């Protein structure tokens, strides 16, 4: 579901200027661990009136999670600004939409707020239960498919859409390697990631990201060691009889290492392109 940010009442969000001065900022992180997907929401609310409504339990922080493919749709609520949703990953597949909110928990009558834009001053507002008081930044999470037949795409990599960035970047400061794609590229990725060109897409998106990761672990391997992605990579290298330390000391180049982990991605991609062109003909 998409919440487009146009509502028949004022909503506190960075997308509009219904409120002066007040703010509602959110960060969402998703991580997979032992068959569970954890979605962590952290909210920062700067508005006295809405803070009071939450204290009075008339409004609550909420995390809305929807996976269209599996018809999973749940809302998680709390009076605390941090919410963790724990979902068995077999209830999810592919793309997951995540929306943070502050929602009216009961009918709120005669609402006024000095921080509201002048346009709304002097008109008491009524919020029905389920109306949106504040809207945070939505994110999409894509889960890789565990494919029994082919090589499992690394469970430690998550591709995410970012609204503001203009280029692909990689974040390694959590248990997952987060590949951030600008909106347009991400949408293309989400549509095509399991298409007939999936190996090619792997080479376009995952391969350079891993090269980036391997360059960066040279600098800070100790700090990274606590992260799950680092531990999993270490195991993958061990299985292939090449210690990860060879990347750190420069014996194995980042580009070689990335191709090793993805198991000849160029070969797969070119085969795929060849097949694709043959069927096109």
């Amino acid at each position, binding site marked *: 579901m998409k919440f487009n940010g146009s509502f028949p009442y004022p909503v506190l969000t960075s997308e509009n200027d219904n409120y002066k001065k007040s703010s509602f900022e959110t960060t969402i992180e998703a991580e997979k661990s032992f068959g569970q997907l954890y979605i962590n929401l952290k909210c920062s609310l700067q508005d006295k009136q809405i803070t009071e409504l939450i204290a009075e339990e008339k409004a609550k922080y909420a995390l809305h999670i929807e996976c269209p493919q599996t018809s999973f749709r749940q809302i998680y609520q709390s009076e605390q600004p941090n919410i963790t949703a724990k979902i068995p990953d077999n209830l999810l597949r592919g793309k997951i939409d995540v929306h943070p909110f502050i929602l009216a928990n009961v009918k709120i009558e005669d609402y006024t707020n000095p921080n509201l834009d002048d346009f709304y001053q002097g008109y008491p507002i009524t919020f*029905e239960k389920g109306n949106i008081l504040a809207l945070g930044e939505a994110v999409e999470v894509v889960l890789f498919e565990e494919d029994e037949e082919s090589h499992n795409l690394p469970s430690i990599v998550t591709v995410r859409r970012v609204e503001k960035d203009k280029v692909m970047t990689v974040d390694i400061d959590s248990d997952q390697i987060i590949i951030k794609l600008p909106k347009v590229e991400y949408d293309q990725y989400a549509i095509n990631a399991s298409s007939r060109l999936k190996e090619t897409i792997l080479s376009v998106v995952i391969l350079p990201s891993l090269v980036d990761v391997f360059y960066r672990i040279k600098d800070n391997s100790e700090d990274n060691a606590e992260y799950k992605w680092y531990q999993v990579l270490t195991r993958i290298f061990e299985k292939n009889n090449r210690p990860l330390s060879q990347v750190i000391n420069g014996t194995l180049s980042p580009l070689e290492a990335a191709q090793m982990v993805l198991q000849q991605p160029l070969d797969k991609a070119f085969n795929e392109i060849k097949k694709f062109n043959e069927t096109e003909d």
Partner: protein
Amino acid sequence: MKLKFLSEDTLQDLRANFDFYKEHYYKKDDAWFDEYFSQEGRLFESNIEFERPEFNDDENYMVSDFENVKIIYESLKHLTVSQATQERLWAGLAHIQMRDFVYYRLKNEFNKKNEKRIFSALFYKYNVKRSIFIHIIARLWWVGYMTYDEENKENPYWLTEFFCSADFSARSTIFFSSNFTSNSAVTKGILKALIILRDEGISIKREHFIESTKYLNIAGGAMVLDLLEEDEAKEMVEKRVRKVFGVEFVQV
């Protein structure tokens, strides 16, 4: 017995070459299917246990659809939803372990050589969410999953029975194409509202279903429907349908 999936390559081959293979479907050419699937690498066996159920083959689909929802959901209740979204599973069942059911349920389509419907009944023609309510076997499981009422211990399929009582194919796609019907409180609320009206003697038709989802869709533009309790969703829909179709409240 274990559930068999089609290999990705096989699925893509059957899909891509459907036009070429379709005569074998029309002719119910078991010998051809058996030979095709005996080839190396066509199938792979999952570790999912499964006993092949006996389907109901009543001449009246309005009878058998409900029975077969129960039958398939009971025999595959242990599937995870993530597994149950997979085309390779349902296409595999349709071609191998449940081919006779396909012959039965698509009898008219085979006779008429309705290739579009045969394709969408055996494969995913649209996005996953839509396709699982169109695929001839997947939709049985998914309607079971979405309408099963755990709280009714004596008859957990009472909502299913109502849902399947008429217009099964269209209801499945119309009703479950809305995102909010993924929320079981909302889904059960709608069905319970319509059951109340049915019990008052109103014949529930497609337009009642459409009005219910249309109304919630509009309401969902201003509010997060998932916050509704089942009873609240029921009341909203009941009130709306009464208003639109001019049905008086009954004093109890």
